[in-house]
């Protein structure tokens, strides 16, 4: 077994250790989805469509978001943050392992558990309420390619936010910034196409919409994976890869390696 396969195995084993914690935390996964469905059903009560989205589109949108957000959403990675703040990073730095890939595969383990649970929800939901989901199998290859690129970009941006903690005494401000800005411009809160004028314009200059909104809109057929978007993905992936390398190198020079 390779070191990364072993890392994924350990991560899954650790995630499955605390059964009650796991059941409760996954039990609440669907709550934002349910709230969004209730809200949008209210909105659609008075309208047949909102900016080219039907109710079915919207419900499907939030369901796919639920499905992919754990992989592509660039939240602070608390494994990395705690490694840095607690000084646990010390014992990883002395190992011949690339920390980006270490953190990536560590996270992949919990991603896999999340994926399995959401898959379970998806099957149940599709069986019970399938009339509310838009099934577009022909869009799946484009969606998967976009999802893969979003996943890579999402991990790179998440790594950037997380290792930025190397420069900070306290990460709460960064955490608030990430938690406030990212949901708006990534499409977690609502499809980016529905953002009002100025916010929509800002979103077009940011890489965040590529992470959640784009893959889902491709599944819905609202966007096409044209060469311009692929260039855009590659531009941001290369840029954040370079930024990560730079921030990591400079950050380690500032690293205090707290604790004995």
């Amino acid at each position, binding site marked *: *077994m390779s*070191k990364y396969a072993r890392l994924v195995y350990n991560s899954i*084993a650790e995630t499955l250790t605390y059964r009650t914690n796991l059941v409760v935390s996954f039990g609440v996964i669907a709550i934002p989805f349910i709230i969004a469905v209730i809200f949008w059903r209210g909105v659609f009560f008075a309208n047949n469509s909102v900016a080219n989205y039907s109710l079915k589109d919207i419900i499907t949108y939030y369901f796919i978001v639920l499905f992919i957000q754990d992989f592509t959403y660039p939240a602070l990675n608390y494994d990395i943050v705690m490694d840095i703040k607690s000084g646990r990073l010390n*014992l990883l730095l002395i*190992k011949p392992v690339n920390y980006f890939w270490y953190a990536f595969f560590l996270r992949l383990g919990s991603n896999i558990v999340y994926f399995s649970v959401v898959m379970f929800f998806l099957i149940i939901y599709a069986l019970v309420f399938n009339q509310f989901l838009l099934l577009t199998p022909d869009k799946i290859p484009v969606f998967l390619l976009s999802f893969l690129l979003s996943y890579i970009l999402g991990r790179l941006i998440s790594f950037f936010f997380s290792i930025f903690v190397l420069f900070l005494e306290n990460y709460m401000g960064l955490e608030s910034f990430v938690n406030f800005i990212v949901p708006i411009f990534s499409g977690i809160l609502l499809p980016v196409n529905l953002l009002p004028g100025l916010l929509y314009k800002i979103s077009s200059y940011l890489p965040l919409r590529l992470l959640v909104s784009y893959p889902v809109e491709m599944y819905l057929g609202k966007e096409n994976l044209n060469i311009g978007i692929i260039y855009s993905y590659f531009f941001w992936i290369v840029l954040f890869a370079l930024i990560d390398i730079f921030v990591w190198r400079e950050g380690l020079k500032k690293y205090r390696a707290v604790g*004995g």
Partner: protein
Amino acid sequence: MDVVITVEHLQKVYKRQQRKSGLHSVIKDFFRRKYTEIKALKDINFTVREGEIVGYIGPNGAGKTTTLKILSGILYPSGGFVNVLGFTPWKRKGDFLKRITLIMGQKNQLWWDLPAMDSFLLFKEIYEVPDDIFKKQISTLLDMLDAGKLVNYPVRYLSMGERMKMEIVGALIHDPDIIFLDEPTIGLDVLSQTAIREFLSTYNKEFQKTVILTSHYMKDIEELSNRVIFIMNGEIIYDGAIDKLISKTLSYEYVEVTFDTSKGFVKKSYKVNKEEIPNFLRKLLSDNSSIVEIKHKKPDLEEVARIIMASNGIKKDE
């Protein structure tokens, strides 16, 4: 034996925020921060030969752990030259990292919720240890530490002493040439301390590994090393044999005398200037007929360290 660690003019400077109390200072500080430079290491120079066990001691904040962190590649220095096994540590080349290890008494590298064996198997892959060598190394280490039964319990269920044994196994799986030990017995009970100490002593004798050890328990240092480097305020104030440090620092030794009295055997300890010990004994024997036993005892490293720390440096005791 070859020199495996060379440290020349090593310096490490930290910036520390400075702030007075009071609302005015809080507001002023918000707009303009003031920092002071803390020189954690000022001008550190030493070499270590292959197979040596060196005790690296000093008070809290002296710079011991900072030195180990630089030698193991965790921290960048602010200046100076360091060479460990032919490598610059903070470049963290894979070939370098495979030949060193760092054991920190206050940090865990094992996965808390998993059996230690799961962590060992991960380290095996990280260090690319072949299956047969891994099995042999694990079995040797577990036998030496008498810890074979512990590998299948989640780490969080182990006692501190058991956990430290597992940490040591995990840190030595790749058979490193240099072992940096940062307070490996901190917080352990006497039995566990002894077990760890005995293991380290046997391991060094059997495999001739180079060890740099920091500890606040001077017994660790006395039992494991012959050479000690004493660091205070970021500077080395002594580098040499423990015996010489004791004789250099203290001019007295102890004479312990047991008297046979009407109340039974009574022990008394006298602190006597080294040069006056013959005269003291002569006088003692001529004045007392009830002496049963006389023992001559040198001060230990703990006493010496306490005096050096209290007087902020080595001064010949009078």
